[in-house]
């Protein structure tokens, strides 16, 4: 697939701190691409280098095959939606949106047509003559979006655009943003630290940590097949088990010994051979909790344990179960057929069951991750 916006071996340092470390990334035309990571991971720096507010110390930024690295922000065909909205407080909503077109010296009729279209798109016609201070947070966000989109940018950059809004509004605007993306069809680059936002809006996600990209892929792949322990733990919650391959059953399955836990069947997500050390990620919702010993096939695992913690979340309950030296988190939806028996309580003996396919081998084995990977917090 053709690359539309390309970061090529981009490095950016601030003093002794390397914010972005030799990143190469290809973003395709028309996709919604998220840069996801904790604060300080370099995602905003990367975005600012696309906008032109920051310049890489090394490497290039290419747009549609053209090197835009030396161009100042005003000469780049990209526009930004800022986290703080950065609306012009002295201008009306209409004039805020018309700012770009006026600078670009569009004909007056074209400007007013463009602004009207945008007001229509973000549903703010009734507020066109108000000042930004008279609008709510969600409305300001829509103005910021309209102000950027009216210029018909080749790429729209969104820097944590919903971070300042409350949860319900965030969810609604996310849906609107997705609809607007479908309507205008341009490339969106969405920076966020919120995995939920990234998962729901993106065609592809790049997970960043400490200035490097840990994994790039569609949301499903990022969630179901995390390459590194960081990705597995940052996107959703997961249990980690450290083990050693003791038997290769066939091309698909192997047997793995986890010290202080037992021997389990795993799916060969990557080529393994006897004696390999591996990290296994096991999402809480894949584990089935039961009081009775479950019936198992040869590709199932069942481990006995004791409930050490129970937290009720309304839509589901989480159980922390002690199995030998390990503590696993399991999540259960409240479906009636699961509640036929009384739900397990603190101190109960239970069984955890999962299919070999439900676990996932991390692509990288790292000695230092051994025993260091943490459980989802009990909060």
């Amino acid at each position, binding site marked *: 697939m053709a690359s539309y916006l390309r970061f090529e071996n981009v490095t950016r340092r601030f003093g002794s701190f390397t914010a972005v470390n030799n990143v190469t990334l290809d973003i395709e035309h028309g996709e919604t691409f998220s840069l996801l990571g904790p604060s300080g991971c370099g995602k905003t720096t990367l975005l600012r280098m696309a906008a032109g507010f920051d310049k890489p110390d090394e490497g290039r930024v290419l747009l549609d095959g053209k090197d835009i690295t030396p161009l100042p922000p*005003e000469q780049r065909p990209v526009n930004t939606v800022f986290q*703080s909205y950065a609306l012009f407080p002295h201008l009306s909503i209409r004039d805020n949106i018309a700012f770009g077109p006026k600078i670009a010296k569009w004909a007056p009729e074209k400007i007013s047509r463009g602004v009207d279209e945008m007001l229509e798109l973000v549903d703010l016609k009734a507020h066109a003559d108000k000042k930004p201070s008279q609008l709510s947070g969600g409305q300001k966000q829509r103005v910021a979006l309209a102000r950027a989109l009216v210029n018909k940018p080749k790429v729209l950059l969104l820097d944590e655009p919903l971070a300042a809004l409350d949860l319900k509004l965030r969810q609604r605007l996310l849906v609107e943003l997705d609809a607007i993306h479908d309507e205008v069809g341009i490339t969106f680059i969405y920076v966020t630290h919120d995995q939920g936002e990234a998962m729901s809006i993106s065609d592809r996600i790049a997970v960043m940590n400490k200035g490097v990209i840990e994994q790039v892929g569609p949301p499903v792949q990022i969630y179901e097949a995390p390459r590194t322990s960081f990705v597995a733990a940052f996107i959703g919650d997961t249990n980690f088990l450290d083990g050693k391959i003791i038997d290769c059953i066939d091309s698909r399955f192997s047997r793995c010994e986890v010290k202080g836990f037992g021997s389990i069947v795993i799916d060969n997500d990557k080529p393994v051979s006897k004696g390999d050390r591996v990290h296994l990620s096991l999402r809480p919702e894949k584990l089935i909790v039961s009081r009775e010993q479950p019936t198992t096939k040869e590709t199932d695992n069942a481990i006995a344990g004791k409930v050490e913690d129970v937290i009720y979340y309304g839509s589901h309950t989480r159980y922390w179960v002690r199995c030998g030296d390990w503590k696993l988190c399991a999540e259960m939806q409240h479906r009636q057929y699961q509640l036929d028996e009384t739900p397990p309580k603190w101190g109960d003996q239970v069984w955890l069951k999962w299919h070999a396919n439900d676990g996932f081998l991390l692509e990288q084995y790292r000695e230092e991750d051994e025993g260091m990977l943490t459980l989802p917090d009990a909060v």
Partner: protein
Amino acid sequence: MRPSKVPLITLILVLVFFYLPIGFLVMNSFNKSRYASNWGGFSTYWYERLWERTDILAALGNSVKIATMASLLSMVLGTAAAFALERYKSKLQDAHRLLVTVPLVLPDILMGMSLLLLFVSFGAQLSLYTITIAHVTFCLSYVALVVQARLQDFDFNVVEAARDLGATKTQAFIKVTLPLLAPGIFAGGLLAFTLSIDDYVITYFVKGPGSDTLPTLVYSMIKKSKDLPVINALSSLMLLVTFAVVAVSQRLTRPPATPS
């Protein structure tokens, strides 16, 4: 609990202390009698006399010219200084801030003397221009402080937004930064204007012959007691102008109301 009355009473006493003498002066400017000790009835006689004094009108003209020039110059220089103080990172910034602030409290005699020495050593002819330059030295600090206060809660993201939307650095400054800072700059300029128009000490040092400003003229006039009632009238008018200017300046520095 009922709020204590002590602060209110203190405030009233302080205001009386401030404004009683001024009120007395204003009252006397309408006194028909030449002597403050007896009330000869209400009259605008002294205001009419004031209008006939060409020396006063000339001095007023000088004062207005100087104050206008000095405040315009200090609006430009003070804004630049405020930007330099707020935007650059340097270990010496605290020292810079001190150097900009100190002229506000430096003894006028010191300022006047040093400026006179400077002008004389450069061989500059003492005139309205030397007075203007002298006034800029302290007016600038005022503007710088007011504008810097505005800059402290200025959202520089809007400047980036303007650049992002296609504006060059200059366009962004003219279309976004300047309109947003204008109330602060203007308020600083108005304060500078009031400071300049009633400065006596520094002006006295650097004024040349025949370049009297209103304060220096008034001072030379009070030696002649027959002029005193005219000065009362003049002072009352200056008071009115000062109140108006400060009121406008206060309006401008009030942070814009933001409904949440």
